[in-house]
């Protein structure tokens, strides 16, 4: 075949099977190869709350540029199990290809694969067992079929295996390379010859990029931002924050402790924060519910702490491995009593890094809890991003008094009334700064007080921070055409999907703009203003009760222009869903641009 091959610019691949089938390994190797050809990679894992078994999947998008979501259609489905075909068939179209293991039989009539899709059945499992007596080698066999289909050359494939398996030992490498060769032979038999690939994929010296998840970016931002104490309790999908810090924080003289429960975790963190150490905790819904008493303590005691919430399907235990943005109410309103706080919402790993640094600064400067609202998608999906600029990081520890400053002061009051609501902090151990920190209402020295005049002054002092911190809160990022009638609002994992939906709509001749808010609370006036600037504003969120839209309305957003797009079934949001919703609501007929 000598036809001109296509340059690969956008490819969506799902590899799926039973948990433990090695789907993620296939995706990771493929990501590695495609990255060397200059494409940016985004990967998503669909796992269940069990160690082995159940239908799991790993999804990859390779894109010529930044794209932080999986495409609306899957170009290639690799299925180790026929049930996996049924599960993902709805995401295929007539141009899709399905590579499936036919060791146990062929695809049934009702498997759901579109009629036009190409089907390639290969007895992967049978050959794995026959050649290696181990079923697990089917994933390495499948890689050869994928590579031949896409147009990777055999040498590229061998090289990628050497890179991946070398660290697992010579034996592992040998068997996996042998499995790859078995796969290449099976490909030939299936008509996938070395020159039959769909795309022209050439390795190049790609622009260096970071491969990082939102959780990792938060952890890294905390380290660079001067964080030195972290306490946590394992809970999906936030645990990677603790795991990354466990590896790196001690190298910089920091401490990571795994506590016996979330109550202990937040209180250990409070203990560390009281000493003037930059401190963070990470959890998700159930853990955050348990921590609520501690959150109020931070507000009343004026203790700085960064609290990361990797939101997952709720309520209660909910769907631990599935994304949701249904803790917004808890983040904004959680805890009893009135106290100030800030809630920040990054949309991509870059912002996870930058906003965590900002959160540390705001927490220290205003002595209150600062939340980082993530979600399972943003927390755990792996993206290629431009390297973060370390030297751009600015650290501001706020008003602190050392021994010299205290020696010059006539009196030190931990909760001195100040116009900006912030009283200077003297770290325990500093001579002359002895003070009382308490969750009881207190006077300026921290002594318990229920005096009504003091109560009102003290509560008002704390609440004033909600105003004075505004200048330090991250502003929204604007995308699209600022005169467009149609606007979008959405945070976290919705960021990448909204940007893709905007591209599709532009292709349909529909112009849009996107107000990517990065501070949920206290909400900045810019957000309410945006709702008044557009004819209709689509608030895209991953929950059932429009928590974000209601928050915007409560903060002055124009309810009459707000239209909610809600999803809460646990599957990834796709741009097509948003596009269809908008076109339908706007009464615009979809144009077939294919």
């Amino acid at each position: 075949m000598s036809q001109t091959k296509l340059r690969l610019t956008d490819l969506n691949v799902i590899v799926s099977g039973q948990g433990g089938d090695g789907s993620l390994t296939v995706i990771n190797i493929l990501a590695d190869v495609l990255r060397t050809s200059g494409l940016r990679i985004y990967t998503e894992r669909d796992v269940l709350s069990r160690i082995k078994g159940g239908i799991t999947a790993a999804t990859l998008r390779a894109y010529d540029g930044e794209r932080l979501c999986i495409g609306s259609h899957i170009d290639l489905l690799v299925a180790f199990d026929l049930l996996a075909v049924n599960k993902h068939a709805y995401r295929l179209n007539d141009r899709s290809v399905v590579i499936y293991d036919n060791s146990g039989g062929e695809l049934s009539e009702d498997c759901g694969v579109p009629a036009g899709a190409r089907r390639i059945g290969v007895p992967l499992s049978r050959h794995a067992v026959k050649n290696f007596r181990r079923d697990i080698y089917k994933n390495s066999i499948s890689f050869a079929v994928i590579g031949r289909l896409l147009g990777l050359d055999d040498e590229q494939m061998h090289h990628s295996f050497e890179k991946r398996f070398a660290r697992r030992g010579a034996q592992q490498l040998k068997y996996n390379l042998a499995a790859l060769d078995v796969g290449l032979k099976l490909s030939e038999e299936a008509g996938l010859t070395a020159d039959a690939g769909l795309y022209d994929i050439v390795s190049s010296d790609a622009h260096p990029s970071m491969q990082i998840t939102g959780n990792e970016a938060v952890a890294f931002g905390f380290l660079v931002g001067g964080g030195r104490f972290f306490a946590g309790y394992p809970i999906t999908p936030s645990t990677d924050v603790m795991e990354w810090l466990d590896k790196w924080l001690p190298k910089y003289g920091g401490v990571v402790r795994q506590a016996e429960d979330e109550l202990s975790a937040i209180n250990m963190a409070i203990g560390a924060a009281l000493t003037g150490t930059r401190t963070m905790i990470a959890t998700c819904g159930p853990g955050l519910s348990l921590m609520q008493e501690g959150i109020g303590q931070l507000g009343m005691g004026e203790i700085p702490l960064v609290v990361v919430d990797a939101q997952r399907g709720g309520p209660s235990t909910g769907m631990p491995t599935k994304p949701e943005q249904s803790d917004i109410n808890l983040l904004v309103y959680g805890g009893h009593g009135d106290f100030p706080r800030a809630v920040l919402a990054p949309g991509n790993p870059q912002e996870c890094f930058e906003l965590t640094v900002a959160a540390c600064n705001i927490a220290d400067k205003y002595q209150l809890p600062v939340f980082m609202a993530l979600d399972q998608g943003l927390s755990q999906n792996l993206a290629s991003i431009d390297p973060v600029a370390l030297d751009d990081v600015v650290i501001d520890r706020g008003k602190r008094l050392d021994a010299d400053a205290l020696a010059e002061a006539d009196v030190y009051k931990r909760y001195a009334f100040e116009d900006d609501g912030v009283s200077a902090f003297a770290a325990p151990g500093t001579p002359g700064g002895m003070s009382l920190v308490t969750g009881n209402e207190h006077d300026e020295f921290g002594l318990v007080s229920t005096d009504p005049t003091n109560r009102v002054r003290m509560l008002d002092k704390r609440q004033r921070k909600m105003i004075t911190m505004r200048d330090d809160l991250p502003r929204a990022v604007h995308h699209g055409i600022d005169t467009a009638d149609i606007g979008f609002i959405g945070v976290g994992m919705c960021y990448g999907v909204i940007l893709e939906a905007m591209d599709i709509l532009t292709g349909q001749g529909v112009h849009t703009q996107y107000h990517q808010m990065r501070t949920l609370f206290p909400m900045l006036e810019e957000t309410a203003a945006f709702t008044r600037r557009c004819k209709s504003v689509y608030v895209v969120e991953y929950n059932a009760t429009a928590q974000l839209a209601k928050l915007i309305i409560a903060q002055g957003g124009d309810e009459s222009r707000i239209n909610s797009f809600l999803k809460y079934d646990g599957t990834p949001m796709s741009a097509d869903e948003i596009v269809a919703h908008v076109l339908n609501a706007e009464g615009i007929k979809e144009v077939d641009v294919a």
Partner: protein
Amino acid sequence: MTKTFTPARPIWCAGCGDFGVLQALVNALDELNVPAHKRMVIAGIGCSGSLQNNLSCYGYHALHGRVMPTATGAKLANPELTVIGVGGDGDGYAIGGGHLMHSFKRNPGVTYIVMNNGTYGLTKGQPSPTSPNGYGLNIEEDLDPIMLGLSIPGSTFLARAYSGNPAQLLELTTAALQHTAAGHGMSYLEVLSPCVTYNDTYREWRSSVYDCDTEAGYDPTNRAAAFVRMSELREEGRLPLGLIFRGERAALENAALNHDFTAPALQDVAHLPLADTYGDALQSFMR
């Protein structure tokens, strides 16, 4: 000198056992020359949880039951501080009971003084975990935290004092602070501290306390023998006092901290050359 808060007068009822604990703590700290600015007193909720207001220190009024997790975090962040946890039996054994066993297991460099009065005084006399079966409407057996401590292999200092015996209380408070200051980790001191209003046990405890410190042949380094002796004394209706157990083990902060660096709280993180300092971590993402 900078004026800081003036320690408040205790809010306790006249005759409360907690007065003795406060006095012993102040005297022991002075005796050991721990300056006010190095003291961090973390108190629980309840009558005893106001003790930090009554001496010069960095004081913190913790959430109910969370004295030990808070104290552990503070000690790890700044091990140069003398961190002292104080609270009652409801705080430490009921709502915070789960943390007690993990604290024994962890062995952080914290002195933890529990003022045990066998009741919830501040809420007017409900039974606590150490109230005997038959106290009010209580139908549960009482908890013996010293025996709990003995059953956890990580514990290193378990002692019980009685506020009606101030000499031994001072001696044990001093010994507890010294154990922790020497890097051996957590020192746990339970003080029988009667509530004169809701559970006045002075007379009863005066006759039932038993001093292990003066018992010939009592070996506080023998965990198994100590457990047997505690069981026997309990059967006899006695309340054992003294240094019940002392073990050898390094404090949590010894293993948890990277000693190539100054402690987390004392690092100047705001003035580091960022690209040089964190280049390795950044490189780990360049895959």
